[in-house]
């Protein structure tokens, strides 16, 4: 039997998912979102993702949620990474090589200071 069998089910599932996400967001103070579509991967987004995960592992950081998304920003900026802290408005970084990713992790995620020269101001 599928999960959703009526419009009412859809409403309920949406509501439950929303609750689940709210709890998740409370548990993980920091979200890191990496753009992962073909141009991003061609520009090296996999290596960037790897560097972020390694940093979290090495530094034993908790409460960080790393997510992927599709197209984000312009292709010529890729790899692109977004950092959201305490559900504030996201900071978007362009041209994030593994080295830049480690810097963002150290200075912004851990140190709380935005890495200005890679940040995009919308």
């Amino acid at each position, binding site marked *: 039997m599928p*999960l959703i069998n009526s*419009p009412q089910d859809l409403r309920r*599932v949406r509501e439950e998912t929303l609750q689940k996400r709210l709890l998740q967001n409370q548990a993980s103070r920091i979200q890191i979102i990496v753009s992962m*579509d073909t141009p991003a991967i061609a520009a090296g987004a996999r290596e960037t993702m790897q560097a972020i995960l390694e940093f979290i592992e090495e530094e034993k950081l908790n409460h960080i949620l790393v997510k992927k998304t*599709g*197209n*984000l*920003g312009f*292709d010529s900026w890729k790899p692109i990474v977004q950092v959201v802290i305490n559900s504030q408005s996201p900071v978007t970084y362009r041209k994030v090589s593994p080295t830049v990713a480690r810097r963002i992790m150290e200075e912004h995620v851990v140190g709380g200071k935005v890495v200005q020269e890679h940040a*995009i101001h919308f």
Partner: protein
Amino acid sequence: MKITRSMVLVSSDPLSLQRGSLEIYRRFQEKLESYQLAEEVALSTITDVGNTEASPVVVIYPEAVIYGPVQPENVDRLVSEHLYKGHIVEEMLVPKRHLPSRMAWLQSRKGSLPAQQRILLARVGKIDPENIEDYILHDGYQALAKALSKMTPQQVIEEISKSGLQGRGGAGFPTGRKWSFVASAPGNKRYVICNADESEPGTFKDRVLLESDPHAILEAMIIAGYAIHAQEGYIYIRGEYELSQKRFLKAIEQAHEYGFLGKNILGSNFDFEVHLHSGAGAYVCGEETALIESIEGKRGEPRSRPPYPTTHGLWGQPTLVNNVETLANVPPILLHGAEWYRRFGTPSSPGTKVFTILGNVNATGVIEAPMGITLREVINIYAQGMKNGAAFKLAQTGGSSGSLIPASLQDTPLDFDSPRKAGVSLGSGALLICDDNTCVVDLVKVLLRFFRFESCGKCTPCRIGTQRCYETIRAITEGGGQLSDLDGLLRLAEQMERLSNCGLGQTAAVPIRDMLKHFRTEVEAHIRLGICPTGICRMVPEDETAELIENQMV
């Protein structure tokens, strides 16, 4: 790194130049620099303003206000008041009666820039494409639920018709009409096909949608199936798009698990299945009948039409073939209503359009903008200007088969209607922007090489025509061109356009005609003087066999 938030256009038509518009431009450069606004405010010129009493004029976006006549000493005030503080300087505005009608359309875009209007890309970059929960949280499958529980199939089609949605594959056919044709065609089975064989060079809007928001396309296919009484749908994704295929397969799987596909969807007694069919590398399969042939396990050779797929499509049954981007419009229209949708774009071309920007500009990628945006706006606001400050020479819209737009036409609004009048086509929404280091003959040679390679060979005008055109243009780039060749090219172009069986051959001639229309001097320089003005073409014969191998024809 800052995002462009405003754009200043200084008129530079002959009258304005005479009245000192260059000085105004220079002052703007200076003032923007001293207010540290140079990064946020794009500065450009506009030629196509029509004669106005009030020239020289200055247009400022996003407010779309027109100041004039502007004197160099007014610039300081415009920068400090308007651009720095954000107050419109009312007393300097051009009085309405002095505005030529050509400027009127500028005002229709008021406030819409530079913030992009996102309908189709609303979720792109916000959700994890492989997570159905993310999609559901962002209004996902709400439109399907509304259609199945509150609307009849007929009402769904009516809503789409009312919205004025036009096919986004390039031709701009009214979508609602197509749906009603298929719904009313006699047949014992009907099919929905989503055309995701996006092979038009420079076009990747469908890939962005499939990779970033696959469930949206799936939802639209299910709704289309409900509207036209189909039980089965195919999505034909080109073989080169591996990630799109992977993510769409995952979406199909999740939709089954959640009950959006299969039997008795949302308790409505409506059954629907979607199959993913992979292309195997053939540009011509983007043509709908070639695509159907390919699904049926044949060479992708277009059928003769009529009959059209709406009555005789897949396996001979009535079939709806819609482009990915067209379908992406469906859920938002059903969810928010046709009236809401018509608020975007122009009256004759409602909605937004996804454009892909590429070439010699600072920012390349995908944007969604209202129909009716101009090339100049795209280049200066979204693409953040030409790379290395080079001059804009030409743009090609709509992939290989699109028009070449010279700098003088860059203020033509891009929608389905106006480009046709100005002789340019919007096509698939690809905008290849070239600077003055691009040789137009070399560019057209590359395009023709592509068509020659991709022609399926079924009909003669296309098979031989693309080959002959390519040979002629290649000879010109090698210093072997003759003036009579140009007439020959035009004749061939006309024959290909009139006699080819499908769009490939019919549109292959478009770049040739545009080249001769807008850049004839440059082509003639190759022939008469034996030089390539940009220094790109080598002007000596190249090895024929190398070329043949290069195109894998041996």
